[in-house]
């Protein structure tokens, strides 16, 4: 079975600084996707970034980038120039590719605080 592990229950960063959230996963599949979702206090799950396993290039979305290490099954999220609005729960997630039903498997989450 696939699993997703986030070893940092809480992280803190100073505004304008950079922070990295860790995620490891386990799978025997070769075709899959990895995600970072953000959940602010409003409860709305927001997709931050997506990485296709077959792509070697790390995904980037503005201030958000990932370090995807496929052999090590590691998928960390880097937030640059942190802003107060980045404060939220961040969930790492996995989805099988191909013709799978497509549900997500989530890690336990990391609560990110941003200090002014």
């Amino acid at each position, binding site marked *: 079975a696939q699993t997703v592990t986030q070893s940092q229950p809480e992280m803190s960063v100073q505004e304008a600084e950079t922070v990295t959230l860790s995620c490891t996963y386990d799978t025997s599949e070769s075709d899959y*996707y990895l995600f970072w979702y953000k959940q602010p206090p409003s*409860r709305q*799950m927001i*997709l931050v970034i997506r990485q296709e396993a077959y792509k070697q290039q790390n995904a980037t979305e503005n201030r958000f980038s990932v370090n995807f290490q496929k052999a090590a099954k590691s998928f960390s999220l880097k937030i640059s120039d942190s802003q107060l609005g980045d404060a939220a729960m961040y969930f790492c997630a996995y989805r099988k590719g191909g013709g799978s*039903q*497509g549900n*997500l498997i*989530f890690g*336990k989450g990391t609560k990110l605080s941003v200090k002014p």
Partner: protein
Amino acid sequence: SAVISQKPSRDICQRGTSLTIQCQVDSQVTMMFWYRQQPGQSLTLIATANQGSEATYESGFVIDKFPISRPNLTFSTLTVSNMSPEDSSIYLCSARTNRGNRENEAFFGQGTRLTVV
């Protein structure tokens, strides 16, 4: 990406009663899912809502407790039956299509915060 409307956004219910949560998507989607998020925890998949057939439940979740309907490609309901305080959670509806691009990845409703007293 599509927008999901989920209601109610919150409810306080008496134990032993049932609550039906509705999920409406503003465009046709391939898949719809129901997740539970217990207080301070991550999201756990309850079931995949299949259009026109019975939902596919994950281990630990059964149809009698969580009946699900999906009459068409844009709408689904989840009922939490015979509630107990242990059912107090956030319930989230999610949907996605199979078009392969980022915009069609799983998107979520705002969730229903259920408190059972």
